[in-house]
């Protein structure tokens, strides 16, 4: 111990070079978040009703440096801290996704929080913290920064899941989510520590170069890889690690459910992609079969259970599980396909489309629940008769989730199939066929909601129109436009192909 301390003494501290432009989005988000919190502490009640707007701005302002970075494409990728923190087009696109997700969650939550007599200011501050974690995650290329980002994302989310504190279901949601989340973190950390132990570094690119990972399959490395991936499996709610998701989704406040189902899951995928695609290419023979099984099981089980649901939020939860299965699929062939179509590109495209259509669906659920006070699928009965615009929007989202052109979802699925069929191996093609068959299962329960809206009468003959508060209407408009544009002009997201300049490549 003493000798170690003595060594530290001899190594002079060199301040790492900081690229202020590249970290500007995070710093702005942090600064504005702190400012908003301070304002809240000073003005208390007087500022409460401006909190959603202020928080929304907090998410929009960092887009400015992101866009300037994007335009300055010659300087990309920018790398800091010996490659532990990388800004490239891949991470910039994800940052845009997360910031806009944050903005949409604020829009979804505004009326829900104002009407529910909750501690609304604190909710927005926690959302900011969680989004900051996601923005950091996009650039993290080091086991430690990934772990820190993941906890920064999760801990506020545990609190928010239990936000309706007088509601038992919400308490259950928060508790389950926290216990499972902590458990997952522990497993992941165990895997990561072994990975560090065998490779001698926490930097993903260095891990990929280490001799032990390059020297074929070894049980210790396999153990590390499997534990790390299982940890992420909890975060992205892959079967069999999905059991927390439906209860948490149902009990949590609905805007937060949207946040968990989209943004938080996306962050889990980003972490998974960073680790698998940067650090683990040498271990593809271990990771690929694991991913194949996880993907196939996740999409099939998620879909089959979703068919049985009668509560719409639970159904969306299981559908989200199934969608995670599709998104895992490209990782089942990542070792063979990296050069031409990059699996990260397919997954990021999927995440973008998924965010648009899922937030949209949640916006509709919130709007309908404001009137019906129910989360049952049957409460959507006759929506086309008394709110045709809302019904049409929901129909778009459902068809998009089912992957029917011309709305966005088909392009997301197309990208997945595109990666899977690239090298005509039994491995890829069989997973593509399983995914194709699964999309038929999925269509059944998505159409079940469409059936309620179009074919069934209103429950209780209740024809009162649905009110459209401005924030929810804005969220709906943004997601409808995004869902349609992604479907008709897929080139918009497709151009991200040159995108993953993940460190070490």
């Amino acid at each position: 111990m003493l000798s170690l301390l003595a060594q530290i003494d001899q190594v002079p501290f060199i301040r790492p070079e900081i690229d202020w432009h590249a970290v500007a989005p995070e710093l702005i988000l942090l600064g504005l978040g702190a400012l908003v919190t301070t304002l809240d502490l000073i003005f208390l009640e007087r500022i409460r009703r401006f909190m959603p707007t202020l928080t929304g701005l907090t998410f929009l302002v960092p887009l400015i440096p992101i866009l300037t970075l994007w335009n300055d494409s010659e300087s990309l990728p920018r790398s800091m801290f010996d490659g532990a923190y990388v800004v490239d087009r891949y991470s910039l696109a994800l940052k845009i996704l997360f910031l806009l997700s944050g903005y949409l969650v604020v829009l979804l939550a505004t009326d829900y929080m104002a009407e529910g007599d909750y501690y609304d200011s604190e909710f927005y501050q926690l959302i900011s913290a969680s989004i900051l974690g996601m923005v950091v995650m996009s650039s993290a290329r080091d086991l430690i920064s990934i772990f820190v980002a993941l906890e920064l994302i999760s801990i506020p989310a545990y609190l928010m899941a239990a936000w309706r504190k007088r509601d038992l279901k919400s308490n259950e949601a928060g508790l389950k989510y926290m216990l499972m989340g902590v458990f997952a973190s522990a497993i992941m950390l165990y895997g990561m520590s072994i990975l560090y132990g065998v490779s001698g570094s926490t930097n993903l690119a260095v891990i990929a170069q280490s001799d032990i990972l390059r020297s074929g399959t070894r049980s210790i490395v396999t153990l590390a890889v499997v534990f790390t991936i299982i940890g992420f499996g909890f975060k992205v709610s892959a079967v069999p690690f999905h059991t927390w998701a439906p209860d948490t989704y149902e009990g949590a406040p609905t805007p937060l459910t949207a946040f968990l189902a989209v943004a938080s899951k996306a962050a889990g995928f980003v972490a998974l992609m960073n680790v698998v695609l940067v650090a683990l290419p040498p271990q593809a023979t271990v990771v690929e079969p694991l991913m194949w099984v996880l993907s196939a099981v996740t999409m099939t089980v998620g879909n089959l259970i979703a068919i049985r649901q009668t509560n719409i939020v639970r159904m969306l939860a299981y559908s989200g599980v199934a969608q995670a299965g599709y998104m895992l699929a490209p990782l089942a062939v990542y070792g063979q396909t990296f050069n031409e179509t990059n699996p990260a590109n397919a997954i990021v495209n999927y995440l973008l489309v998924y965010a648009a259509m899922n937030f949209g669906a949640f916006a509709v659920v919130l709007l309908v629940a404001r009137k019906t006070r129910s989360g049952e699928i049957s409460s959507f009965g006759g929506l086309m008769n008394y709110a045709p615009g809302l019904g049409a929007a929901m129909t778009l989202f459902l068809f998009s989730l089912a992957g029917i052109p011309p709305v966005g979802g088909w392009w997301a699925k197309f990208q997945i199939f595109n990666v899977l069929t690239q090298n005509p191996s039994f491995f890829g093609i069989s997973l593509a066929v399983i995914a194709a068959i699964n999309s038929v299962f999925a269509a059944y329960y998505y159409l079940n909601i469409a059936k309620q809206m179009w074919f069934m009468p209103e429950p209780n003959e209740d024809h009162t129109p649905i009110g459209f508060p401005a924030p929810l209407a804005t969220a709906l408009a943004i997601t409808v436009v995004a869902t349609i544009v992604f479907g008709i002009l897929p080139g918009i997201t497709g151009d991200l192909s040159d995108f993953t300049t993940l460190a070490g490549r």
Partner: protein
Amino acid sequence: MTEFLNDWGITVLVFLPLVGALLMMFIPAKDEESHKLIALLTTVATALVGIALFSEFDFDRTADLQFDVNTSWISVVNANYHVAIDGMSLPLIALTLLVVPLVIIYSWNHIPDPGNAKMFLMLILVLHTGMLGSFVAQDIVLFFVFFEVVLLPMYFMIGVWGGPDRLYASIKFFLYTLFGSALMLVAFLALYWNTGSQTFDMQELASLVAERDIPLGTQVLIFGGMFLGFGIKVPMFPFHTWLPDAHTQAPTQGSVILAAVLLKLGTYGFVRIAIPILPEAAVEWAPWIGLLAVIGIIYGALGCLAQTDMKRLIAFSSVAHMGYVMLGIATLTPFGINAAIFGMVAHGLITGMLFFIAGSVKDRYHTLEIKRLGGLLVQAPKMGWILGFCTMASLGLPGLAGFWGEFPAILAAYNPADGVSTSLFRVYMVIAAIGTVFAAGYLLWLLQRTAFGTPSDEFADDPEITDMNMTEWIAWTPFLVLIVLFGFVPGIIFDITDGAVVESLKTLAR
């Protein structure tokens, strides 16, 4: 004008109905008359654009793609917005352009329960865009998108305006078709990667497959994926079970469009995509397609004999008729495929007409149970005669359009393409010929039970049972005229299709 048509003609043709639907979105649902008017004007305008295109179409070079527009669409996967018309697609586009306005005219006083003309007509217009787009697309990703677009409106048409079992029928229709098209998409992508991931263009893919040495086994598997997608849509035995349900439950307008145009998307897919791109695999598959086709012919006919519902009977007759079309396609000869395209148009006109009649009978009698019907010739003589005319056309009476779809297809089976077993196809030919006897049987029996005799007691004095009304005359006359015209002068269609069909089979000849 010519320049405008060359650059924009097809795009306008395809998206004009969608513009109409968008316009209708902003008009309140109560104003039904304006909705009907806008829908009609939109489809007529679309048809006029179509006529303008056809008048500029160079009928001396039907094998070439005309009004060709090819711009980049999804550059990451090299998918293009490539649309064009050639001799193979022209008859089907014309059929679509004819059927949809007539369906809207028919809707003038036949909006099915529970009403809501706005939504109903908007869905028909969206359907119109999807169908036209599928026939003009020259890029398989674009084709796939349009091919799927038709699912949504049809699902809602059956589900909202359909019969008592509409929920079951609509979801069955949807899931069946989706199953096929999902595997078809996997097949398309496998094709893309196997040809070197350069293009999704149909013609370029055909030449790339010919150039590259793709293992026959892979080709056969890719063809299998396409076969599922298209075969379910046709529908071929044993994937036909969605069809009787969908047809029986769909509102009249839905049945007509389904029979007249949607089923053709499947057969069109075979002649436009599957066979030209994968000719070697097609040769391997041909005996099986032929087998399923003749099973369909016989099975459809037997199914018809067992039906007690008039609409369901017509639906089963579709299975049989599409069997002839598929038999023609399975021969892989220009003769057979020309016959198949003729058969598609003829079946569209005749079966579409039969569904119109069934719908009008249902309006008057409120039932389609054959046992309870009878004496249509007494109560509504003109409609009775039209029914008689259409059954004759449907059973393939020479001189009417149905004959030229069936007879050449049977004849083509006598001598299929090289590499396909001749003796096997001669057996198929005999079975298909026997099928025509069955067809005569069930159709004449239908006519006898519904039109002949005296009306049953329950309907004898029903004042609601009247003869043809004005919208029916307007909507039906063009069908009847064309059935006769194509019957007497089949060359109109054969001359247009032949060049393109020969061109499409040139990869096979190599």
